């Protein structure tokens, strides 16, 4: 059916689409969006074919590799540009190209009135290509190319409406903060190359036993930094909220479903390193747990629907990171949550886009309300996503989140208790803030501005939302049916250790459902049964104010990094002006000064020149006189 040699077309189709649309220019304005959607859909269909092909093979033969060309060859060091499709990659390929195609379709309508729609679709295709390269690379170096590619696409798409300075700044902020993470990844690659002599996933996996734990810990920490940058985890989380400046389909695709989960992919892909470096693994869990709570708290206070969803994304990725940090027991659940989250969060973002579409691009939830009746399809699809994320059975989020909470409790000792409590607390808060979003937008009384006439979105927009909503409903059940996903991925990871079940699964389920009920009830009490002001109240507690300000993440960054950086820059400017420019100007003015002095000897009088000749002869004679002394 399909062979390994067709792997390149997975990336090639969208890459060709991007290059073609960017190069051909305005001529493609009329049909560029359809072309780009076709490219993305082609990639998805090819991915599906590969998936069926792979499922038909025996477990040990499932991974296939296509070597494209020799990329780097220096002495004994050789890197091929090669693609690896295994059980983990195929999950991502389907997620990226599938959700990507739906969002392409959605964007056709959403961006219909934008004069740069063709460029937008070219960037989307570029993103799909880069993201597929990221998950298909067979070495850290190939992954790195895709890693930078998605960074570029993210930068271009966040700043797509770069006529607004704030949006351009947001894209720059995302780019710079991602760069810190990228630095971590490049350091990890360098350490791996220096100590193991290879950057292939396979090669590194085999070399894990040869190198010491400190080296592995170093690589692990560097990979973690990379993951925090790309996945908006603490302490590099600040860019995600601002990234909402981009068009909503971008937020759905890049900043909810796919790119931000690349950090999770990186950690899961590097499972052999983290398994051998417990310190790094512990750090992963800590980072995930902090971000989980951090994002959830911010989510409670945000009135901007996209920023609330972004905070939620941050929090949900925190769950995935916690899962990935729990070792062989958690990898598969992290991936599962990643996939279900890809469905329901993308669906909710598209729903938010639909709401904004109907509300004249208003993003403040306090100006929404009562949209249930005027936008029924959006309400239903968004509501299914909502049920999925807060973890109501039998929706997708219930299965995946439940598994992570259970694994956290069962990781043993004090760590297990703390982690379990944190994830459970996260579930409470998630239920609270998602209910808040739901109530403020759809079920509370209308608080619309004058002249706003909300209406249901066209079919091209609600169809992708509906498909994603179906995914939100069914994905969790499908993945857990007979441990489908876990056993599918199992060959990639180390064997799960047998552990005593500290908490039986049923107890965890009861706890989780209780947490959801608490969160939902609190939110309903506060928002559904009380009137909500269209203007955010200002006499609020310090905690709320802090949360509204993203818990001071920007203040922190400014105080710790920006100010010293500016001071350093100013110092360098002074050094540059006083020392370097001073030297340059000094040489210049020295030349000018000596020129002005010497000019006076050039009187134009032949006699003064003759006198100079005489003096010169005198000097020569004096020299001879001294030498022959």
């Amino acid at each position, binding site marked *: 059916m399909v062979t390994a040699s067709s792997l390149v077309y997975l990336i090639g189709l969208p890459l060709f689409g991007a290059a073609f649309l960017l190069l051909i220019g305005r001529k493609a304005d009329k049909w560029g969006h359809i072309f780009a959607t076709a490219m993305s859909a082609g990639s998805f269909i090819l991915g599906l074919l590969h998936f069926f092909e792979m499922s038909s093979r025996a477990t040990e033969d499932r991974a296939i590799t296509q070597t494209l060309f020799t990329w780097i060859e220096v002495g004994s060091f050789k890197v091929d540009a090669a693609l690896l499709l295994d059980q983990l990659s195929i999950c991502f390929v389907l997620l990226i190209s599938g959700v990507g195609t739906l969002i392409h379709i959605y964007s056709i309508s959403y961006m219909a009135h934008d004069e740069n729609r063709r460029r937008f679709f070219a960037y989307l295709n570029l993103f799909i290509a880069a993201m597929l390269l990221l998950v298909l690379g067979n070495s850290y170096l190939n992954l790195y190319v895709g890693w930078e590619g998605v960074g570029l696409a993210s930068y271009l798409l966040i700043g797509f409406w770069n006529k607004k300075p704030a949006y351009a700044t947001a894209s720059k902020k995302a780019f710079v903060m991602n760069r810190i993470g990228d630095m971590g990844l490049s350091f990890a690659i360098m350490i791996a190359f220096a100590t193991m002599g290879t950057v292939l996933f396979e090669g590194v996996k085999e070399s894990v036993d040869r190198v010491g734990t400190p080296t592995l810990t170093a690589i692990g920490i560097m990979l973690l930094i990379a993951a925090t940058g790309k996945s908006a985890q603490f302490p590099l989380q600040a860019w995600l909220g601002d990234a909402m400046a981009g068009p909503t389909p971008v937020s759905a695709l890049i900043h909810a479903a796919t790119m931000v989960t690349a950090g999770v992919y990186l950690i899961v892909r590097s499972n052999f390193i983290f398994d051998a470096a417990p310190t790094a693994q512990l750090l992963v869990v800590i980072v995930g747990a902090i971000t989980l709570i951090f994002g959830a708290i911010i989510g409670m206070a945000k009135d901007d629907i996209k920023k609330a969803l972004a905070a939620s994304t941050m929090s949900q990725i925190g769950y995935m990171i916690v899962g990935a940090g729990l070792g062989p027991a958690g990898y598969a659940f992290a991936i599962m949550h990643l996939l279900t989250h890809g469905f329901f969060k993308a669906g909710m973002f598209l729903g938010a886009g639909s709401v904004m579409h109907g509300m004249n691009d208003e993003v403040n939830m306090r100006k929404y309300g009562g949209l249930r009746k005027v936008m029924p399809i959006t309400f239903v699809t968004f509501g299914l996503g909502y049920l999925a994320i807060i973890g109501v059975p039998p929706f997708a989020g219930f299965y995946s989140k439940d598994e992570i909470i259970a694994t956290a409790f069962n990781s043993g000792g004090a760590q297990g208790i703390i982690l379990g409590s944190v994830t459970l607390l996260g579930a409470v808060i998630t239920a609270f803030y998602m209910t808040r979003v739901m109530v403020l937008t759809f079920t509370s009384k209308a608080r619309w501005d004058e002249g706003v006439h909300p209406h249901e979105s066209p079919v091209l927009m609600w169809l992708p939302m509906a498909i994603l909503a179906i995914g939100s409903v069914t994905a969790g059940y499908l993945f857990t049916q007979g441990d489908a996903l876990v056993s599918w991925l199992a060959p990639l990871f180390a064997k799960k250790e047998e552990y005593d079940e500290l908490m039986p699964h049923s107890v965890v389920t009861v706890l989780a459902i209780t947490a959801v009920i608490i969160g939902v009830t609190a939110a309903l009490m506060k928002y559904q049964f009380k009137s909500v002001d269209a203007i955010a109240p200002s006499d609020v507690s310090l905690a709320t104010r802090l949360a509204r300000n993203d818990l001071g993440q920007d203040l922190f960054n400014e105080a710790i990094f920006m100010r010293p950086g500016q001071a350093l820059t100013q110092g360098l400017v002074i050094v540059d002006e006083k020392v370097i420019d001073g030297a340059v100007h000094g040489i210049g003015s020295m030349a000018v000064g000596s020129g002005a002095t010497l000019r006076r000897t050039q009187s134009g*009088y032949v006699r003064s020149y003759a006198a100079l000749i*005489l003096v010169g002869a005198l000097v020569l004679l004096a020299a001879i006189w001294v030498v022959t002394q």
Partner: protein
Amino acid sequence: MDPYNYLYLAALLFTIGAVGVVVRRNAIVVFMCIELMLNAGNLTLVTFSRINGDLNGQVVAFFTMVVAACEVVVGLAIIVAIYRSRRSASIDDASLLKR
């Protein structure tokens, strides 16, 4: 007496000629001082010829005289040309290099 005395004399005349070139402003006098310096040089050549018992020095002095004659002819022609256009024989007036 010592033949070197001629050399001392030549050195003195040469030096006086050099001073004359610098301190006099009349182009013709300057030219004459240059001639004086050339003559002093010739005197040393003749004296060296005598000390070495070799006529080569005198031949060189002869060439010097011819060259000096050429130089005088051209130099004076230049002075006349300048005088004709500027009505002045002062070499300080011809200081256009300054500007």
